[in-house]
């Protein structure tokens, strides 16, 4: 929250439209999320001239209130309303939070022309028992009755609520930094606040010593003030803290917050009497205890930085002070700490203790040592002025800050190329002046020193280009296209085959799904057909997403269940995804699931039901399409979660590339068929280039034969022997009928003989045919059916 009234101290925005300014700032990269005009219309300071009890009520009062142009009657229920006090009066027409409009009327028969308000009724305080008990606001002010109450309340301000990217959180998070941003945009100058104070002869060295015993504190300074008078802060401090979203407490606490909101540098105030003679900054010990000023007992670890009095911790550095050295009403002397701590340590400590405060957030972003010093001086100045403090001379300093200035050298052309703008040296000079970045220009080379307040800027030309670009305005950037050669992009690696497989499976009737890689330990145990251990996340968000899957099949079962619950009858799906084992080996897989019908025509009774052979057909079609025709086989095999009599391994060139089968009825009683193939393995195989093969011009001869075999003999045993015995003249063999009886079955084959170069004679075909009959009987034990 940025108070624009506050910014006025540092940059001239008197004549700016603050809504338009917000748009300009947003365009330049600092997003003003909301512009809030805090003003409440028809709210004036009133003086109670007379106050009597309401005749018809035991708690209401009838007041005559001077509202400037007149004295008017208002009925008020607060117990603290009385003659002579100055109050806040909402006149008719005033709209209070909750869209509550004040109107003239009467309350229990008494005319009432407004409302005397409590702060919570104006939305300026939280409504709770404490604020309710306070009653109406009693104003301690010399402002005459009738004065616009917004002036008194500080609500004549405009406040910006910012939504800034992390890097600009740093300098745009405090008013002077934000004033620099405004000044750059409006091309104006920044005036820094006054910080001159008198130093007493008495020196801090007499009272406290400093030792830093950790490399996580590169900068630590301390000054001391004596004889502070704790009281209420002056109005301007209170108003500005309220506008920026902080609650005023007392002058000393408020000054530390005020300076933090000015310079972005948090300060810590120790009660000097409680602190003792020594400041030792060190890493905390394991399990070292501290009670923080919110009265919570906390346990530290060796990663935390602590300020100690030489023995015990008195402050968790950058996060929260200890109760034992807290400033309270009795405090007289204060040791002021202005320091820089290791940002990463502060973030970790704040996160671990769940103590994200205004201070820890700022320490966690890193600080500029120049502003650490400025903040210290400013605090001394304010304490002297508003807390009657005597500032002691001397300063305790521990300084290991790298003060090497960040310098970047570049030519205008480099900026022009990065942005795509035609800039001149003069243009760059203009922009650097606006940014208030010191620079030299020597023979066409710029040498820019980056101010320490801009911690986000690294010394390279891209950072300068960004600053110039955002001030110049990206909306002024013309569109060009890269000056690169024309070509068509390609799929690299297995992306191409993945796309091919995906398209083919869709054409074959399967719907593409996408599911989560992370699964539960229970799901990860299913369909473990490979000897693979999964990766288990050491710190999962929840158990159901704690294991990286080695197979996609359990996820497809989930999709099946999801659709089944929604009364979808035909569930034919696939997914292609990467899987991993515990050695991080990647295996891209193609998983398929089929349930219900395939092609559908119910009224003609020609619907095809999904079964093993349809899924097998899809896989064969896919493999043939990919160029693997005649290189694969299906081998009956028992596979976890699959029906033992309806499952197979799929081999390609004798290497196992996947599985197929019906889901085990004891796992899912419905008739579900699944298969999974390794895309990685398919990708690694080579295929022959596509070639034209002329169809035979000569007639083919067809012969049928049938064998009777025991039921458990697989067809492929006989078929393979037929092919072997058939030799060159046998063009193809195919099963065309199966007939089962008791323990035997008859398998009928259609054989096609042909020669691409001539017409075959019946004699030579019969010769081969007889050879097949003899050899199949001899080698497989199958009997030819007569």
């Amino acid at each position, binding site marked *: 929250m940025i108070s624009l009234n506050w910014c006025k101290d540092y940059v001239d925005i008197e004549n700016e439209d603050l809504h338009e300014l917000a748009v300009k700032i*947003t365009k330049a*990269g600092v997003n003003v999320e909301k512009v809030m005009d805090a003003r409440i219309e028809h709210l004036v300071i009133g003086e109670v001239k007379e106050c009597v009890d309401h005749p018809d009520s035991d708690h209401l009062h009838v007041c005559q209130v001077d509202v400037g142009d007149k004295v008017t009657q208002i009925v008020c229920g607060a117990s603290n309303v009385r003659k002579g006090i100055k109050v806040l009066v909402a006149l008719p027409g005033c709209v209070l939070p909750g869209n509550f409009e004040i109107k003239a009327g009467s309350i229990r028969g008494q005319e009432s022309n407004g409302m005397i308000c409590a702060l919570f009724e104006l939305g300026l305080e939280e409504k709770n028992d404490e604020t309710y008990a306070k009653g109406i606001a009693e104003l301690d002010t010399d402002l005459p009755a009738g004065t616009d109450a917004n002036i008194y309340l500080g609500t004549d301000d405009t406040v910006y609520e910012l939504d800034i990217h992390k890097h600009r959180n740093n300098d745009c998070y405090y008013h002077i930094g934000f004033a620099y941003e405004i000044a750059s945009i409006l091309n104006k100058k920044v005036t820094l606040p006054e910080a001159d104070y008198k130093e007493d002869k008495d020196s801090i060295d007499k009272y406290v010593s400093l030792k830093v015993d950790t490399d996580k504190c590169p900068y630590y300074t301390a000054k001391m003030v004596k004889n502070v008078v704790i009281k209420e802060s002056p109005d301007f401090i209170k108003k500005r803290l309220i506008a920026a979203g902080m609650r005023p407490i007392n002058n000393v606490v408020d000054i530390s917050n005020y300076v933090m909101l000015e310079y972005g540098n948090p300060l810590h105030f120790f009660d000097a009497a409680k602190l003792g003679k020594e400041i030792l900054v060190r890493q905390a010990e394991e399990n070292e205890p501290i009670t923080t000023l919110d009265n919570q007992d906390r346990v530290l670890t060796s990663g935390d930085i602590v300020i100690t009095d030489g023995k015990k911790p008195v402050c968790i550095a950058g996060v929260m002070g200890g109760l034992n050295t807290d400033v309270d009403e009795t405090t007289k002397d204060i040791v002021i700490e202005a320091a820089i701590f290791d940002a990463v340590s502060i973030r970790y400590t704040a996160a671990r203790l769940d103590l994200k405060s205004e201070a820890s957030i700022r320490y966690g972003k890193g600080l500029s040592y120049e502003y650490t010093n400025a903040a210290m001086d400013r605090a001394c100045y304010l304490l002297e002025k508003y807390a009657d403090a005597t500032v002691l001379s001397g300063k305790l300093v521990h300084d290991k800050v790298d003060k090497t200035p960040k310098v970047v050298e570049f030519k205008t052309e480099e900026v022009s190329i990065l942005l795509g703008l035609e800039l001149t040296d003069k243009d760059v000079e203009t922009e650097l002046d606006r940014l208030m970045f010191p620079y030299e220009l020597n023979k066409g080379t710029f040498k820019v020193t980056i101010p320490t307040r801009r911690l986000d800027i690294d010394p*390279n030309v891209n950072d300068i280009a960004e600053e110039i670009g955002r001030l110049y305005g990206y909306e002024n950037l013309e569109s060009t296209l890269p000056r690169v050669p024309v070509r068509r*992009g390609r799929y690299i690696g297995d992306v191409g085959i993945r796309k091919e497989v995906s398209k083919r499976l869709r054409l074959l009737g399967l719907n593409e799904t996408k599911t989560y890689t992370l699964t539960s330990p229970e799901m990860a145990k299913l369909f473990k057909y490979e000897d693979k251990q999964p990766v288990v996340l050491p*710190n999962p968000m929840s158990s159901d997403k704690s294991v990286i899957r080695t197979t996609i099949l359990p996820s497809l079962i989930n999709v099946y269940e999801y659709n089944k619950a929604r009364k979808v009858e035909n569930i034919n799906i696939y997914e292609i995804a990467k899987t991993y084992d515990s050695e991080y080996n990647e295996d891209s897989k193609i998983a398929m699931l089929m349930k219900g019908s395939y092609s*559908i025509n119910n009224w003609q009774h020609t619907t095809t039901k999904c079964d093993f052979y349809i899924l097998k057909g899809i896989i064969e079609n896919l493999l043939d399409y990919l160029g693997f025709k005649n290189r694969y086989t299906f081998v009956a095999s028992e596979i976890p979660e699959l029906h033992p009599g309806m499952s197979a391994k799929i081999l390609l060139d004798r290497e196992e590339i996947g599985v197929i089968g019906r889901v085990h009825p004891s796992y899912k009683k419905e008739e579900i068929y699944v298969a999974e193939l390794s895309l990685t393995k398919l990708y690694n195989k080579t295929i022959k280039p596509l070639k034209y093969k002329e169809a035979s011009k000569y007639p083919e001869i067809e012969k049928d034969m049938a064998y009777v075999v025991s039921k458990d003999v697989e067809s492929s045993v006989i078929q393979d022997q037929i092919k072997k015995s058939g030799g060159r003249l046998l063009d193809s063999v195919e099963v065309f009928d199966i007939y089962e009886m008791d323990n035997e079955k008859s398998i009928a084959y259609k054989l096609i003989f042909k020669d691409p170069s001539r017409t075959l004679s019946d004699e030579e075909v019969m010769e081969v045919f007889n050879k097949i009959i003899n050899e199949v009987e001899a080698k497989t034990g199958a009997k030819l059916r007569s």
Partner: protein
Amino acid sequence: MKEQVEKLKSEVLQKIESAKDLKEVNDLRVEYLGKKGPINELTSHMRELDAKGKKEFGMVLNDLKQTVTAALDEKKNAFETAELNAKLQSEKIDVTLPATKIPVGAPNILEKIIEEVEEVFMSMGYDVVDGPEIEEDKYNFEMLNIPKGHPARDAQDTFYIEDESILLRSQTSPVQVRTMLAAGGKEPVRMICPGKTYRRDADDATHSHQFMQIEGLLVDKNIRLSDLKGTFDVIAKKLFGEDCVTRFRPSYYQFTEPSVETDISCFVCKGKGCPLCKNTGWITVSGAGMVHPNVLRGCGYDPKEWSGFAFGFGAERLAMLKYGINDIRTFYQTDLRESATFDRKDV
């Protein structure tokens, strides 16, 4: 003689005319044109005539034969056509009965939008590259100018597998690093790398612990921020219509400098203001910028010689905007009743 012929002709033609079916027509053909039929019989009278008479009578007879044959053929055709028509009529089907449903599958909505984006970029010369989802911290963060302890890591709450070394990638940018390293700082790079990413977000309508990014990278000589704007214009028009305009806003990413957020004009209200664009007329769809010199240097490219831009889209966000989807979980549930709609080409 001639009278006899005329009489026979009118008799035959009348009988043909009144024939009731194909059989009657065939019978008449045998009866009159057969060897023993009356027309042949008339031929025998030829002998009785002189040469001139023979010639004349011959012509008369020929005419008779032709006329009868033509009449028979015509009648035969008429019966045959009628018969075929009757058969076809009896075979009439109800064309309004339902078709056989040919099995065909729909793409996942995210894959559909990714394919569309890929097509545009491939036409502009970008390769489509893939990378591991279990990634090294080095590629996911360090080489992207996000050193250990950097606050940008807090924002991307990452699934670590091994302490600070192995993780589920929180962005697809590591693929860009790998591609640049593979090109060895010598070759230009033009690539996109759509893929899955993971962050520790609780799943709800707008958050998903798993989501898809479409990131891209172009590294070459003299590449400008204005080139990024032009490239972005092309993709925006392709995805959201020819009247779509774009704008850049300054932004911040660790691996780009300058960084921008890219907005498109709202395609619903055409910039007038509506609930989709929260009355701003603009919709943010991408983050982008010029590749940070530290990233270039780390991957072997001298920033004085090479420059480039990188950009990233959220596939879910694009799909949600383009198709009017409100719940991010839609993409990972696959309700087949919904996905069936997506088995079609878009406009």
